[in-house]
């Protein structure tokens, strides 16, 4: 089994004792069975299922984009599009904050880039103690299917770097499917948005980075005319 194929729950992916069950799979006797719907992939005898649809499930270390829902005494409650809201504590802000002036840093309705620092029984904890995190002042936010985020980023960021270079925009991809685009001109931002939507549409073609390169050449020619 070298190529990737779509599997449904309960379907056998591979047979034999030399395979190891990975994410979304289970071993029943000698067979590796898919436990969820998605693309089955085998790398070095490790079989796993890459999800195609469904809700985003937050993990520690994920960079996500959210909206400030509420200001409490100790911090901000941020909606990141999952069942539980993320909590950004005052102590996780890398500069001095006046306890009475939390809304000066971030007000209700503001968008912010945050990193998930911990997931525990009480909920999700977020931080902005890192480069590139914090309140979003300008630019635009594009929502996409969270399952397509890995494709937009590409292998070691190849795809997102290509889009950044071609459109001269600063792009932050949130793992929850929200993408922040910031460029010098609105035209650049719209162009970047168009490119991202093209990637999500074609997300299952192999050699996608080359295809996107061609797409950029074609689009640029059209723009010049």
């Amino acid at each position, binding site marked *: 089994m070298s*190529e990737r*194929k*779509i599997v*449904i*729950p*309960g*379907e056998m992916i591979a047979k034999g004792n030399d395979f190891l069950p990975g994410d*979304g799979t*289970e071993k029943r006797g000698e067979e590796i069975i898919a*436990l*969820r*719907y*998605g693309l089955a992939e085998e790398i070095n005898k490790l079989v796993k299922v890459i*999800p*195609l*649809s*469904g*809700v985003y499930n937050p993990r520690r270390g994920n960079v996500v984009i959210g909206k400030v829902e509420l200001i409490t005494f100790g911090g901000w409650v941020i909606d990141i599009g999952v*069942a*539980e809201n993320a909590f950004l504590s005052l102590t996780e802000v890398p500069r001095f904050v006046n306890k009475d002036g939390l809304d000066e840093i971030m007000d209700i309705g503001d968008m912010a880039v945050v990193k998930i620092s911990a997931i525990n029984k009480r909920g999700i904890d977020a931080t902005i103690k890192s480069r590139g995190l914090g309140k979003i002042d300008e630019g635009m936010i594009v929502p996409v299917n969270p*399952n397509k985020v890995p494709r937009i980023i590409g292998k070691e960021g190849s795809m997102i770097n290509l889009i950044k270079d071609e459109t001269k925009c600063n792009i932050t991809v949130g793992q929850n499917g929200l993408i922040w685009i910031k460029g010098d001109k609105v035209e650049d931002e719209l162009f970047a948005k168009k490119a991202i939507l093209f990637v999500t*549409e074609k*997300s*299952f*073609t*192999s050699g996608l980075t080359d295809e996107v390169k061609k797409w950029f050449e074609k689009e640029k020619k059209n723009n010049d005319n």
Partner: protein
Amino acid sequence: MTTKTFKRPDGRKVDEIRPMSAKVGVIPNADGSAIFSFGETIAIAAVYGPKKMHPQHSQNPEKGTLRCTYNMLSFSVQDRIRPGPSRRSTEISKITEWALEPIVILEKYPNMVVDVHINILQANASTRCAGINAAAMALAHAGIPMRDMVSSISIGKLDKQLIVDVNKDEEDWEEGEGATDIPISLTSSGDITHFQLDGKIKKEELKKALELAKKATKEIYEVQKKALKELPGVEND
């Protein structure tokens, strides 16, 4: 008389299922959705979640909850039915929940709930079976971890003759031994998750009915599988 072949009201063979159709991803706002039909019986299912269970006292800290709601739309039958929940729909909601519970793996989602909403757009008997089939596909589409798929079929009896996939005329067939309807749900590996019996049947015949259901659910499974693999925008290469 015994050599004469048995003919059903709509001319189907005894083990012939009405033409089936299935499609996945029909509701853009839902996390997972599917439509499934047996001839004139059409069921549409939407899955939302896993999300936080509300009210809080219904939360289960051990594992997630599956919550199904079955609803027949007022225009789904010839005489308009009163919209809203009824005794029958609450019962079928619970039955659907029990039919699907053994396959979903919700241990990783404590205090959360997966909502499954089933609506019957058009009814001509076997609605709960169509609903379960649609719900199983919608759950898979929503990316919920599942042990297996579930396929459901209703077995009926016209006097002494067992038939597969009953329609309304056959369901109301009172002559001979009386109306009998047996909805059965099976996983693709042949485990029973739901078995109902409405009417009278002999023990041996019930075993035969189960065999018929096993054969029929294999066909349904193939339809479900095909629909899931044909999700638009996905190239299988």
